[in-house]
């Protein structure tokens, strides 16, 4: 009941309200308007209640109630109601015809509900023999096919049917033998026949059932016999299966406990690998390019963004210096390795003091420092793991090389023996010349060589090597046992070897290495070295790293030794061949221990530099120059500043600007250094004045200058001193000269071929320098003197080939200089500094309330609570008004009914009084 009522009344209020709003707004009657006075005016506030229509709104409210609660009251306690749902019945603006049409359309629409809009014949249900297809497809009884075979017409045979149904007539009657049977008989016959058939059928059915049962039981008996054989085999099978299962388990467990490869990316294809390799190289190249820039020009993006910017920030880039993060590392003895000032600041316990100026220090402290360094290596080279892979690869390559080398070995042997002979001969010659101290050294070396040269068999070498390794191991262990003191000492020794120009090595390692390497072909040496390095791989033992860094020092020494006192072309070639093979191992070794190897090489450079400084007029020999090449092999020469390459570049420029170049020895070495400087700066294209000055000097020496017509020269070359030493004194235009400088030029005396080669190569290097500096604006100022000097060389005496090349270079330079333009240096356009903008402080919603201070949830809750309260108040008020309305209606009803009653009473009284009056009249009449 209630449901119905609800349904009936649902949305009544809404409906009423809607009807209201649809109505056209009436014009306000100004007398009805009541203006609410505003006490506080708030700007931008929308006031809803500035004016009101009290009468109107009250009337509205009453009307609303009348339509909602009023009707509800009318229907109160009434169980039934009529609802007129005829379409268009209530609306008055529809004519009767329209109403009809609308109703028909609704009816049609009802048929076409949306679901079946495309299924046109959906309402027809397809049947088969009176059954729907769904019913047919149920297949209820499996045995029903028996019945299906029943004949039509209830199983009556044709005779009977034809007789009974269609018979009759005269002709057929006469044919009947037993006379006409009565209809009753016929029916009885029919019944009997059908009964009989039914019984037959029943019987048949029972028989088949019996037979089936019988068959089943028989089969059951037979079953064990039939399956006996099979069952046995089955058991076997099962057992085997079980075993198999165990195998499987076992295998599974084995697999489970087997060491698993860590999940990694899929094996990369070679192209992918190459791609990655290429990317890595590109990245490295990019980094190198970046290092090439001076610090000031570093891209600003690298600058770390400031975390916090105060509102008082004046934008003047003032920042408190962040404390630099220092990696705390410990050396072997567990003492922290930190720079001095930090030690002071933080008062680190146990810390060792470090001395920067090693000159005044005693040697023990030096040893300490080295110790520290090596300690820090382990920390610094944390990437050793990542390098392992590389190393592995390298090893692989090396092993390949070894194979190749072993093949090549036999070929090279011939050469080697020749070289050895040469060397020993030259050595014996040298010995006579040499001073007493170096004499001993030489002799010892030779004796070793002789010993070695007897056994060239590789197996023996291997044996030796392993011996050496073992002994090295032993030594190392022993030294470790004796404690850190001896260890330090040993390292000191190593350093001393580097420092002291006396080359009798105290520790046996250096000797062994020399023993290992001398008297072999370069490729054999390379093989031996690679084996040696591999056997001391840092992954095998923790102190192998240190051993390898010592090996580095010894190798430096070895290279130094092979380049010392070379007076023969063959010797030089041999030395360079050895260096060629040995150099890659330097690279491997510095990868293993960056810091200490750098230390060794820097010490070596320093020693060489000191030697040079003692007599700066003399150009250092090959045993110094070769290390410049080594440095450029190992370290990036293009860096703006590098701990190794910068000092060696300084060294080279000092040689070029301080030494005197006055004979073939110095000039050839100067050219060697010049080439190295070119190599150092070819990538960075840095400007090296002393190289250009040297070139200028070379041209000066080869130019035909006279006292009368002097040219400007730059130090270290001096006017009218050593001039014309490279000048050709005779016509050599028919001479055949090699293009390149050769080892011979490092030892030969000044001859025409040398002069020609010098000029040729210096002109080409000039061109290269020129091309390197082509972006420099002051190019003309740099190269004009060179061109002037080149113009004064008697080119007609040089070979035609060379003359044409030189003129080509000159032509090139001239053309470039002519086309060179000069733009005034202008101030770099500075981008205007953007106004400083702060991030706006956005708060979620400005409510003006205190809610915003609360948390999100709490404020939401509070808001809802406020809303609830407000609604509640409103609802209560409405209810109160409803009640008032109801009361008013009730009182009105009551008054009305009272009035009716009073009327009625009055009427009764009236009637009664009339009656009484009439009665009285009658009485009086009587």
């Amino acid at each position, binding site marked *: 009941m209630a449901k119905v009522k609800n349904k009936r009344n649902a949305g009544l209020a809404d409906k009423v309200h809607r009807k209201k709003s649809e109505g056209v707004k009436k014009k306000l009657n100004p007398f009805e308007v009541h203006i609410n006075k505003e006490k506080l005016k708030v700007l931008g506030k929308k006031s809803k209640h500035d004016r009101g229509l009290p009468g109107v709104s009250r009337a509205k409210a009453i009307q609303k109630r009348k339509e909602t609660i009023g009707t509800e009251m009318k229907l109160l306690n009434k169980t039934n109601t009529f609802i007129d749902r005829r379409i268009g019945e209530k609306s008055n603006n529809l004519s009767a015809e329209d109403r009809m049409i609308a109703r028909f359309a609704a009816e049609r629409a009802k048929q076409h509900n949306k679901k079946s809009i495309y299924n046109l014949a959906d309402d027809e249900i397809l049947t088969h023999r009176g059954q729907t297809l769904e019913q047919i497809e149920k297949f209820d009884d499996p045995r029903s096919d028996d019945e299906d075979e029943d004949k039509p017409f209830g199983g009556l045979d044709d005779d009977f049917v034809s007789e009974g149904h269609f018979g009759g007539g005269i002709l057929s009657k006469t044919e009947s033998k037993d006379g006409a049977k009565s209809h009753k008989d016929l029916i009885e016959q029919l019944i009997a026949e059908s009964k009989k058939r039914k019984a037959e059928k029943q019987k048949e059915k029972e028989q088949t059932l019996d037979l089936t049962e019988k068959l089943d039981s028989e089969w059951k008996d037979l079953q064990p016999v039939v399956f006996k054989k099979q069952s046995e085999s089955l058991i076997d099978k099962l057992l085997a299966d079980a075993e198999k299962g165990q195998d499987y388990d076992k295998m599974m467990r084995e697999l489970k406990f087997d060491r698993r490869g860590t999940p990694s990316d899929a094996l990369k294809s070679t192209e992918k690998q190459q791609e990655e390799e290429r990317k890595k*190289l590109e990245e490295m190249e990019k980094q190198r390019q970046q290092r090439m820039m*001076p610090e*000031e020009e570093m891209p600003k993006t690298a600058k770390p963004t400031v975390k916090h910017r105060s509102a008082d920030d004046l934008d003047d880039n003032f920042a408190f210096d962040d404390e630099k993060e220092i990696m705390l590392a410990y050396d072997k003895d567990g003492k922290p390795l930190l720079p001095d000032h930090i030690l002071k600041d933080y008062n680190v316990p146990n810390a060792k003091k470090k001395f920067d100026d090693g000159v005044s220090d005693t040697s023990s402290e030096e040893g300490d420092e080295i110790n520290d360094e090596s300690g820090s290596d382990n920390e610094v080279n944390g990437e050793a793991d990542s390098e392992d892979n590389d190393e592995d690869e390298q090893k692989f390559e090396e092993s390949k090389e070894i194979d190749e080398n072993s093949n090549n070995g036999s070929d090279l042997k011939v050469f080697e023996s020749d070289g050895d002979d040469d060397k020993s001969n030259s050595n014996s010659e040298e010995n006579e010349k040499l001073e007493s101290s170096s004499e001993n050294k030489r002799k010892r070396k030779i004796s070793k060589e002789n010993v070695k040269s007897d056994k060239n068999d590789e197996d023996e070498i291997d044996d030796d090597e392993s011996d050496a390794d073992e002994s090295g191991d032993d030594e190392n262990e022993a030294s470790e046992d004796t404690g850190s003191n001896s260890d330090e000492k040993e390292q000191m020794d190593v350093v001393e070897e580097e420092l002291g120009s006396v080359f009798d090595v105290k520790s046996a390692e250096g000797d062994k290495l020399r023993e290992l390497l001398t008297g072999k072909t370069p490729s054999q040496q390379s093989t031996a070295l690679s084996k040696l390095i591999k056997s001391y791989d840092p992954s095998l033992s923790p102190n192998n790293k240190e051993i390898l860094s010592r090996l580095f020092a010894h190798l430096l020494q070895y290279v130094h030794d092979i380049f010392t006192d070379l007076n023969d072309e063959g010797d030089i070639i041999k030395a*360079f061949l050895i260096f*060629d*093979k040995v*150099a890659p191992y330097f*690279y*491997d070794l*510095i990868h293993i221990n*960056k810091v200490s190897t750098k230390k060794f090489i*820097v010490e070596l450079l*320093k020693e060489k*530099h000191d030697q040079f400084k003692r007599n700066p007029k003399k150009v250092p020999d090959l045993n110094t120059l070769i290390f410049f*090449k080594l440095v450029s*092999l*190992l*370290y*990036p020469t293009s*860096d*703006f500043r*590098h*701990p*190794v390459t910068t*000092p060696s570049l*300084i060294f080279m*420029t000092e040689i070029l*600007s301080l030494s005197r170049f006055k004979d073939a020895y110095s000039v050839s070495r100067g*050219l060697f250094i010049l*080439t190295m400087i*070119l190599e150092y*700066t070819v*990538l960075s294209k*840095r*400007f090296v*004045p*002393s190289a250009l*000055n040297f070139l200028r000097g070379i041209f000066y020496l080869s130019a035909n200058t006279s006292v009368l017509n002097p040219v*400007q*020269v*730059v*130090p270290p070359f001096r006017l009218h001193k050593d001039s014309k030493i490279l000048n050709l004194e005779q016509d050599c235009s028919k001479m055949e000269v090699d293009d*390149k*400088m*050769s*080892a011979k030029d490092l030892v030969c005396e000044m001859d025409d071929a040398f002069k020609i080669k010098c000029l040729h190569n210096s002109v*080409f*290097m000039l061109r*290269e320098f020129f091309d390197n*500096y082509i972006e*420099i*604006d*002051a190019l003309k100022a*740099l190269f004009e003197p060179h061109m002037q000097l080149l113009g004064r060389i008697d080119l007609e005496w040089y070979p035609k080939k060379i003359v044409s090349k030189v003129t080509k270079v000159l032509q090139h330079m001239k053309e470039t200089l002519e086309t060179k333009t*000069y*733009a*005034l*240096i*202008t*101030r770099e356009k500075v981008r205007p500094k953007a106004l400083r903008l702060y991030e706006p402080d956005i708060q979620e919603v400005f409510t003006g309330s205190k809610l915003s201070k609360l948390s999100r949830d709490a404020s939401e809750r509070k808001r809802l609570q406020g809303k609830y309260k407000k609604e509640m108040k409103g609802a209560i008020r409405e209810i109160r008004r409803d009640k008032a309305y109801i009361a008013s209606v009730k009182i009105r009803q009551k008054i009305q009914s009272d009035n009716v009653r009073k009327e009625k009473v009055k009427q009764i009284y009236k009637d009664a009084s009339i009656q009484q009056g009439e009665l009285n009249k009658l009485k009086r009449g009587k």
Partner: protein
Amino acid sequence: MAALQQNFSKMISAQLRSKANDFLNSRKNANNLADIIQLFEAETENFTSVLLAIEVIFTELLKRGDLLQVVVPLKPADQSPEALYKKWLNECYETALTHALQCVKKGKITSRLQALVTLCKLMQAEGNYPLEPLNGYYFPSVRLKNIFNVLLDSEIPMSAPITRFQEFTEYRDVQQFGLKVLTTLAYRKSPSHVFIQNYLELLDKLLALEIPTEVKKAKGKEDDKEDKVLCSSNGKQFPFSPVSCKRYANRCWGFACQWSLCEDPKTHRRALMLLVERLMPLLNKPQLATDMLCDSLDAGGPISMLGLQGVLELVRHHNISYPDIYDRLYAMFEPEMFATRYKKRLIHLADIFLSSTHLPESLVAAFAKRISRLALVASPDDARSLLQIVANLLLRHPALKRMICSEDSPAIMSNDPYVMEETGASRSRALGSSLWEVRALCRHWAPEVTSAATRVLASHNARDPPLSLAPPEDNEQFEAELKKRFKTIEINFIRPDGMCIPSGERLMTYWDLTA
């Protein structure tokens, strides 16, 4: 062999010492002295031990007063053995001194130096304990004269002994009497170069200790006490008079001026050094040196640099105006200057000369241009100091800023308007040019130079005061570079396959070393 000789000489010196001691201990061993003096005639290079023995003996004798001879007038010479002995001792003393003087000239250098020291020591002893009883201050000028006579030899360059003598010229009395003695020795007509050399050197050393000028004198009362005096043991005050010193110095220079100082460049240089470094403040009329200085300016090379310093002195303190001093300075900036010893002096002087803000722009611009051109061929250290000058020029002369940031429309020229060959600085049209050289130096290989050059280029809106030139650094670039600390040690990323670097190999393109 050398060791053996050393051993021998050691033995001799030991013997000699014992002999000397014996002699001093008793008169019985008087012959020892004669023996020792005899040794001077020996054919040897090294007289050190003998000299030492002589020194010991006579210092002791002088101290004892054994050599003191009292000559009473109108009294016949004393013939007592004591007097005779004294006379003999005196004779020995004289002979020993003459021998020692000869030793200064011959033998090994150490022995020569020792002879000089011995002579000076004996002179000191004699000054303290005069041979004749005297009152007041006594300085053995005769001995000093003898020494000077030897030092001013006409054939042998005496630079080593004279340098050694410097340790004695630190004494005020030696300085004063030395100058006085030198005036007496100086008068010579056309002396040899060697003599002039020695003379100038000696004068230089004598003036090494600064002679206070009048202004200083008032303040310098207390300083006088600190002045060292060689012969002062008797507590007698040595009357030092700067005025007379100045007079003597002037006279010495006056004599020197009469010689042909300017013929030999070495002498010339030395004379200029002496004049510029020591004498200028002392001379009464420094203007007289103007001619010499101007001649030196024309000579070129280091001599003109020194001359320049003298002229600067004259210009600054003596109101001398020199017509084209700036052109001369301009001409000195040649690549050859790097080879000279005085390049730092030149750079320093140039900075002073160009510090005037009243110079015409074109002139300063020419200097800036020329100096930066020069920096292109200079060694890193020189390049840095040259760049510093350029930076100072830019700071002092704001008009020069157009050379690093021209405000004109960026015209593209086919040539540098600056003419390097032009001798007149103002005519070289440098103002129209830009400092492209400095920009080239921004690509210098040495990091310091690069940063210095960038600083110069970045100074267009700097208003810093011009920096004084950095004092010459003794520690070398190489060492300094080695001391730098690096965070990482970068390594080539491609493994070399032999002695060829994969990218940028040049050695192998120009050298064929393995075949």
